[in-house]
C-alpha cells in the first residue's frame, strides 16, 4: 500500500509532470493548497452574493429588488418570498462556513504551510491529500444542485434543527411536511456535508501524522511556529469532533429517507414520521450532537487564523513573539475547553437548566485563554518596530476585531443575559466579528504574507492598503450596528421586522447596514483584481522578501517539487529571533547554522 510510503527523496530535480498531474490531480501539497484557495474564493463570492440578497431584504422589506428582482419567478412580482429568504440565509451560512472558511484555513493554508514550515518535502500521505481535495467536489456540486431541486436548497438554517429539517418526506414526494425547502434540498445538504466532513477528516489525519512524524532535524515541538501549533490543534479538534457530526448527519438522513425516528419525538406532533406516526426520538439530541461538533468547529475556524496572525505580527513588529509558551498553552486550553462548552448554544433549547449552569461556567472560562492570546499579541507589538505592510495591517485588524468578537461572546455565555440576547442580532454581530472580521482578516493577512511564496511574485502594496482600509471601514459599518439592534431585541433570521411594534424603530439602522454591506461586497473586487494582476504582473519575489525566520523562507519562491533544494534544512532555534542583540541583521532564521543558539524549548 503506497499510502505508508515516504516520498522519494533521492531525486530532487523538478519532476516534469503533465498538465493534468501538475495542476489538476496533483499530489503536491502546494498545488492542493492553491486549489483549495481558488475554490474557496469562488464560494466566497457565491456566499457573499447570498449575504447581499439577505441584506437587501432586511434593509428594505418587501422592496422591489433592482436587477435581482427580474430573475425571480414572475408570480413573485420582483419581490422575495419568505421561503426564498430562509433558503438564502441558510445557504449563506453553510457555504461560508463549510466551503470558504474551513477549506481556506485548513485546506489552503494548512496544506501549503505545514510541510514548508516544518521542513518536510511533502505531506505524509500525498495521495490521501489529493483525495481530500477531490472529495470536496461532490460536496460542492451537490450543494449547487440543491438550489435547483423542487422546493429549493435547504432552508432550516445552517444548524438544521429537527423537526423543521428532519420531518420525513412522504413517499413519492420531494417536499417535507414541515417546510417546502426541507425536502430534497435538505437531503442534498446532508449528503454534501457528509462529503465535506470526510474530506476534512482525511486532511486532519494527514496533518497530524505529518506534524508528528515529518519534522526536519532540530525542529522540536517548542520550535514550531504558532501557525503549525494552531494547525496541529485544529486537526486534533477536527479528528475528534467531526465523527460526531457525521453520525448526526447520517441519523438525520436516515430519518428523512427510510423512516427511522432518531430525532422525531414520541407523541404530540402534527406530522410524525411519515411512515409510522409518532417516533420515540429526541429533537434535542440533534442539537447536542450538532453542537458537540460545531462548537469546536468555531475554534477550527479561528485557531489557524490566530496562528498565522501570531507569525505575521511577530515578523512585522520585528520582535520575538511575546510569551511563546503561554500562547501554545492558550491554544491547547481553548481546544480542551472547547469540547465542554457546546451547551451554551442550547441554554434556551429546553435542555435541563441545571446543565445550563455548568455549561455557563465552562463557557465563561474559555474567555481566559483568548484574553491571554490578545494580551500576548499586544505584548509583541509593544516596543517593536512595526512595518505597516498590507499583511501586518490585516493582522492588526484581526487582533482589534477579535477583541470585540471575544468580548461580545461573554454576553451570550451569561445565561440570564442570554435569555434576552439569544437568537437576536447580537449573536449575528458576534459570529460575524469572529468569523468575518477576525478570520477573514486573518486569511487576507495570510494571503498577502505568503503570496510571494505561493506564486513567486509580490502583491501590490498600494492596492492592498486601499483594499484593507475600505474593508475595515465598511465591515465595521456593516457589522457593528448589529450589536445595537441586537440589544434592541431584533430577532435574527427575520424576513421583516416592521410588523412588530417593539422592533420597527430599528429599521433605519438596517437600511444603513445594507448600504455598508453592498460597499463591503464590492470592495472585495479590489482584492481579486490585485490577486490576479499580481499573478502575472507583480514584482518578482526573492527567497525571503519579508526577512522572516521560519523555514518556508529557506525554500525558493515558489518552492519546487520537494520544497527544498538539496538536503532539507536543519533547525537551530525558535522561529521568532527578531532583533537579536548579538546579530547584525534584525532577524535570524531558524535554518541559519551560524549565530547565537537558543536552548531548545523542549522535545516531544
Amino acid at each position, binding site marked *: 500500500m503506497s499510502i505508508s510510503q515516504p516520498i522519494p527523496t533521492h531525486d530532487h530535480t523538478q519532476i516534469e509532470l503533465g498538465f493534468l498531474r501538475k495542476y489538476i490531480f496533483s499530489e503536491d501539497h502546494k498545488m492542493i493548497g492553491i486549489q483549495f484557495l481558488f475554490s474557496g474564493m469562488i464560494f466566497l463570492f457565491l456566499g457573499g452574493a447570498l449575504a447581499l440578497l439577505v441584506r437587501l431584504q432586511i434593509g428594505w422589506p418587501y422592496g422591489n429588488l433592482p436587477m435581482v428582482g427580474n430573475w425571480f419567478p414572475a408570480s413573485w412580482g420582483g419581490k422575495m418570498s*419568505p*421561503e426564498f429568504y*430562509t433558503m438564502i440565509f441558510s445557504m449563506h451560512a453553510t457555504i461560508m462556513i463549510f466551503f470558504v472558511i474551513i477549506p481556506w484555513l485548513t485546506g489552503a493554508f494548512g496544506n501549503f504551510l505545514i510541510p514548508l514550515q516544518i521542513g518536510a518535502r511533502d505531506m505524509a500521505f500525498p495521495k490521501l491529500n489529493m483525495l481530500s481535495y477531490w472529495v470536496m467536489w461532490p460536496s460542492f456540486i451537490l450543494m449547487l444542485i440543491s438550489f435547483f431541486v423542487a422546493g429549493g436548497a435547504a432552508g*432550516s438554517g445552517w444548524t438544521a*434543527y429537527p*423537526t423543521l429539517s428532519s420531518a420525513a418526506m412522504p413517499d413519492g414526494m420531494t417536499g417535507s411536511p414541515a*417546510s417546502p425547502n426541507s425536502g430534497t434540498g435538505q437531503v442534498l445538504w446532508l449528503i454534501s456535508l457528509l462529503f465535506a466532513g470526510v474530506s476534512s477528516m482525511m486532511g486532519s489525519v494527514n496533518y497530524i501524522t505529518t506534524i508528528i512524524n515529518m519534522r526536519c532535524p532540530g525542529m522540536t515541538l517548542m520550535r514550531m511556529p504558532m501557525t503549525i501549533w494552531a494547525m496541529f490543534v485544529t486537526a486534533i479538534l477536527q479528528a475528534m469532533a467531526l465523527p460526531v457530526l457525521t453520525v448526526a448527519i447520517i441519523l438525520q438522513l436516515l430519518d428523512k429517507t427510510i423512516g427511522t425516528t432518531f430525532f422525531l*419525538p*414520541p407523541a*404530540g406532533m*402534527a406530522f410524525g414520521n411519515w411512515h409510522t406516526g409518532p417516533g420515540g426520538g429526541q*429533537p434535542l439530541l440533534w442539537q447536542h450532537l450538532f453542537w458537540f461538533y460545531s462548537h469546536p468547529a468555531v475554534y477550527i475556524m479561528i485557531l489557524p487564523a490566530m496562528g498565522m496572525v501570531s507569525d505575521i505580527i511577530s515578523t512585522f513588529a520585528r520582535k520575538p*513573539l*511575546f510569551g511563546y*509558551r*503561554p500562547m501554545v498553552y492558550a491554544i491547547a486550553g481553548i481546544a480542551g475547553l472547547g469540547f465542554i462548552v457546546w451547551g451554551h448554544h442550547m441554554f434556551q433549547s*429546553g435542555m435541563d*437548566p441545571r446543565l445550563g*449552569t455548568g455549561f*455557563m461556567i465552562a463557557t*465563561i472560562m474559555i474567555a481566559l485563554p483568548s*484574553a491571554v492570546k490578545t494580551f*500576548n499579541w*499586544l505584548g509583541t*507589538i509593544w*516596543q517593536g*518596530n*512595526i512595518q505597516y505592510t498590507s499583511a501586518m*495591517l490585516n493582522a*492588526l485588524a484581526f*487582533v*482589534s476585531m477579535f477583541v470585540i468578537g471575544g468580548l461580545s461572546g*461573554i*454576553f451570550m455565555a451569561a*445565561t*440570564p*443575559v442570554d*435569555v*434576552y440576547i439569544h*437568537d437576536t442580532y447580537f449573536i449575528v454581530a458576534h459570529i460575524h466579528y469572529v468569523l468575518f472580521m477576525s478570520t477573514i482578516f486573518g486569511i487576507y493577512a495570510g494571503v498577502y504574507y505568503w503570496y510571494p511564496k505561493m506564486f513567486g511574485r509580490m502583491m501590490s502594496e498600494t492596492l492592498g492598503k486601499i483594499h484593507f*482600509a475600505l474593508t*475595515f471601514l465598511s465591515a465595521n459599518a456593516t457589522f457593528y450596528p448589529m450589536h445595537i439592534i441586537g*440589544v*434592541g*431585541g431584533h*430577532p*435574527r*433570521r427575520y*424576513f421583516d*421586522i416592521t*410588523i*412588530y*411594534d*417593539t*422592533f*420597527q*424603530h430599528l429599521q433605519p439602522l438596517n437600511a444603513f447596514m445594507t448600504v455598508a454591506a453592498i460597499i463591503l461586497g464590492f470592495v472585495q473586487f479590489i482584492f481579486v483584481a490585485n490577486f490576479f494582476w499580481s499573478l502575472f504582473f507583480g514584482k518578482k519575489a526573492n527567497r525571503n522578501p519579508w526577512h522572516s525566520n521560519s523555514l518556508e523562507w529557506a525554500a525558493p519562491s515558489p518552492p519546487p517539487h520537494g520544497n527544498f533544494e538539496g538536503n532539507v534544512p536543519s533547525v537551530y532555534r525558535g522561529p521568532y529571533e*527578531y*532583533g537579536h542583540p548579538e546579530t547584525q541583521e*534584525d532577524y535570524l532564521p531558524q535554518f541559519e547554522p551560524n549565530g547565537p543558539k537558543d536552548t531548545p524549548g523542549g522535545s516531544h
Partner: protein
Amino acid sequence: MGKGWSVFFGVILLATFLLWFVAPFYGWWLPNAVSTFGPDVDWLFYLILGFTGFFFVLTQVVLIYAMWRFSYRPGEKSTYSHGNHRLEMIWTAIPAVILLGIAIVQISVWQDIKYQSKMPPPDVTVSVMARQWEWRMRYPLETSRFKWDQKATPEEVRQKQLAARAWAENPEIDDIPIANEIHTWVGASTKIYLRTQDVLHSFTMPNMRIKQDTLPGKTIPIWFKATRANTFFDTNTRKLRIPPNRADAWEIACQELCGGRHYAMRGKVYVHESRESYEGWLKHAVEQSNSREPEKVAAAD
C-alpha cells in the same frame, strides 16, 4: 502612511465606542423591562457591558498607542524580549477572577428564571401550543385552579403541578381558547406550559426578558410576573384599552427558525391593571367562545 494607520484605527474604533452612547438617545436600546426578573437581567447586562467596555478600551488604546509609538524607524532594532513570566501570571489571574465572579453572580438569576423547583404557585396558568405560524393559548375557566398555598406539602405541590401539566396536555371542554394573546394582571405569577405540535419555536417576550424554545414531545413550563400594566378591560364597551404609545405594545415573537413565515409569529401581551379587569375579560372571552361552534373549540388545541 506609518503612524496614520494608528489614527485610522483610532477613529473607527472610537466611532464604534461612541455608538453605544448615541444609540439610547435614538431609542435603539433595551425595550422596557416589565417583569420581576427584568431588572436582574438588565443589571447583569450592564455589569458585563461595564467589564467588557473596560477591557475593550484598555486593549484598543494599548493597540493604537503601540501602533503610534512603535511605528517603523529604519535602522533601529526592536527590544529583544521573549515575554515576561510575571506579566503572564497577572493577566491570566485578573481576568480569571473577574470571569469567575461574573459567572457566579448570575447563577441565582438563572435559577429564578428557569428552575422548575423555584417557580412560585401560579395565579394564572396558560397552555400555549405553538404551531406554524401562530401561538394558541388556552386558559382554564377557573383562574387560580392550579395554585397552591404556603402550607402545601411538597407532595401536594407535586400533585398540583402534575394536574396542571395534565391539563396543559389534554384540553378540557370549558377551556377558553385564544390565539396569539397572553393575558394576565400586574403582580400575578403567570405560568405558561409550552408545547408545540410541529417544529421548534421559541416563545419570546422581549419586555418580560423571557425566552424558551418549545420542543416537540415535551411540555416546558416557564413563568413570569409583570410589574407594570398596559391594558384594562372596559366592561361597558367590552373592549381592551391599550395606551397608544409604542413602548407599551408588548409583544410575543418566535425566535427559533420555524419555516418560511417564522417572522410572522407575532403575539401580544396584555397585562391588566387588576385581577378584576382580567376576570372581566375572561368572562367576556367565555361568552365569545360559547357563541362559536363546538368543533372549532375542539380543534383549537
